[in-house]
């Protein structure tokens, strides 16, 4: 049998193919071992090693890490009101960025799926992906120039005689500031810009699975376009929105560069982690901060599941 198969294939490679064809379990094992090693050992392993560090504590005087189980770090972490500020600020920003990305991504994705011709669709895909080809830092710094006090936005506002509007926006409490580049609004704008592709692509994938006939059926049964959107299109696109929001939400939760360059220089979670493990050398505290995005995402996904976001999967 083997000789026959090998002679047919005419090479050792064909013989190997035949051998694997007859042992599907072995083939599966060979395919799964590399990713399982990567995910199980390198990725999850390092994550748990990091989280385990949060149960160590730091000696306040010597700055030496005491490698014994203790909840001292968490006691300090949760007892500090400034830390709660950081968490609240980051979660609110991540929520706002996710909503902003959804609001902008949905119409683009819908247009690309339902209306754009092949050529237009290709161009739009390119437009969505193109920013990802250039350096993240370059893009963030260019936004600094765009949003600065003498920057492009204020120049345009002046040309359009809308300086008063820009100033009114900047005078708003909390989100305003001396200029767009030194305000939460500026941080928000740049976050939305940077993470937008990660929202558009999953929504496109979800909308492409909605048959045109289902949308027609809704109209046929008397639903106006608005009712069709609320009752059919949006619920069916929900898994895509949730997938996109996992990106935008968790990326915002962990980012430490954008709020450092654009905004009010008040710290976000990412910056807190960065400074605790770097400047302060307080790795247990940095590890404790790392737990926050994980818990927040866990809560978010379980709420989304309970609200039926994955029913259309």
């Amino acid at each position, binding site marked *: 049998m083997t000789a026959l198969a090998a002679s047919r294939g005419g090479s050792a490679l064909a013989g190997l193919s035949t051998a694997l064809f007859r042992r599907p379990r072995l083939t599966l094992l060979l395919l799964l071992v590399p990713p399982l090693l990567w995910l199980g050992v390198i990725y999850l392993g390092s994550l748990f090693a990091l989280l385990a560090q949060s149960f160590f504590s730091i000696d306040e005087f010597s700055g030496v890490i005491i490698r014994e189980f203790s909840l001292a770090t968490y006691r300090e972490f949760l007892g500090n009101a400034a830390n709660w500020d950081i968490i609240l600020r980051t979660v609110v920003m991540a929520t706002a960025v996710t909503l902003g990305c959804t609001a902008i991504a949905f119409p683009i994705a819908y247009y690309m799926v339902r209306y754009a011709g092949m050529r237009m669709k290709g161009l739009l895909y390119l437009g969505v992906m193109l920013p990802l080809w250039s350096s993240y830092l370059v893009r963030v710094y260019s936004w600094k120039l765009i949003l600065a006090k003498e920057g492009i936005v204020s120049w345009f506002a002046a040309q359009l005689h809308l300086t008063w509007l820009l100033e009114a926006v900047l005078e708003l409490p909390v989100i305003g500031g001396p200029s767009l580049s030194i305000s939460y609004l500026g941080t928000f704008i740049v976050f939305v810009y940077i993470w937008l592709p990660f929202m558009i692509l999953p929504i496109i994938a979800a909308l492409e699975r909605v048959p045109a006939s289902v949308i027609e*059926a809704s109209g*046929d*049964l008397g*639903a106006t376009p608005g009712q069709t959107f609320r*009752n059919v299109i949006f619920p069916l696109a929900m898994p895509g929105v949730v997938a996109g929001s996992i990106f935008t939400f968790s990326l915002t939760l962990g980012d430490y560069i954008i709020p450092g360059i654009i905004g009010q220089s008040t710290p976000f979670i990412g910056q807190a982690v960065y400074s605790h493990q770097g400047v302060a050398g307080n790795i247990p505290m940095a590890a404790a901060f790392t737990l926050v995005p994980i818990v927040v995402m866990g809560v978010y996904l379980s709420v989304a599941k309970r609200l039926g976001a994955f029913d259309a999967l």
Partner: protein
Amino acid sequence: MGGNGVPAVAFEAVSRLFGEVRAVDRVSFEIADGEFFSMLGPSGSGKTTCLRLIAGFEQPSSGRVLVHGEDVSGVPPYARDVNTVFQDYALFPHMSVGENVEYGLMIRKVPRADRQRQAEEMLALVKLDGLYGRKPSQLSGGQRQRVALARALVNHPRVLLLDEPLGALDLKLRENMQHELKSIQRQVGITFVYVTHDQGEALAMSDRLAVFNHGRIEQIGTPAEVYDHPASEFVAGFVGQTNLVDGYLGQRLGGFPGRYAVRPERIRITTPDTLPEGGVAILDGVIRNTTYLGATVRVVVAVEGGEITVVEQNLQGGDGSASRASGTEVRLMVERRHVQALAESA
């Protein structure tokens, strides 16, 4: 059929162009109130576009579409008193069977208890009682088909449009559904407009049918009219099987030169010495081959000037090869009234 005589649907010289392609080309017809009307034709013949013009998914490029006497040009689908059963069912996958059926009522803000009762009644009508809480993904193709029907009928539209609704079902189920659709239509008394490429389905169910080809209607009539008196070669070939003859054979069968259609089951095979009665055309020939089809046997007979196909009832049992062996000399007889003269094809 309707009380006031206003047709349920009327097309007045309707054309629908897609770029340069005339999907529907100056089509005019009327569908009576309460009628079961089929639009039959091959794919790309314009029948589905006509259905979509009635539903409002397409707008005519020229001409007028009237639903119950009202010009519906520019009226969006959600404002039309018609409902559609889609070819792929188009059920809402994130809703239960009950929610699917109630959808139109929910949109019209019918109170919850009321619409639930109506949905359950409608599910009973299509024999799906008890499946109210299921998801469409848990149903078989035939059940989904019934949900789609219930979802449309619960709104009591004045016209129900069906776009090849049985196309995805297997043969046995399709035959059952044909009977059921027909009896549901009699029960509810709604005008059914039924699109199909299956001529058997159209003949079995329709009060009248229109045969479409290249965006135009070749013939409109009752199933018997269309089958017995096809207006064109296309209709004769598309609806049922047929022998198309011209030249010498045409002269022999029709009595005059021209093109004729003869249905294979109208021809009798007899022995060469049988004498014809009046009004019967005869052809002598030799059996070339027979094909066993179960209920019938198809016999191809070589005659002077061509071949004639005859379909006989399988009355003898067996595969019919004994009495209809190849090479047997036979005489074919067909009554002249079954030889249908065809108009010159356009």
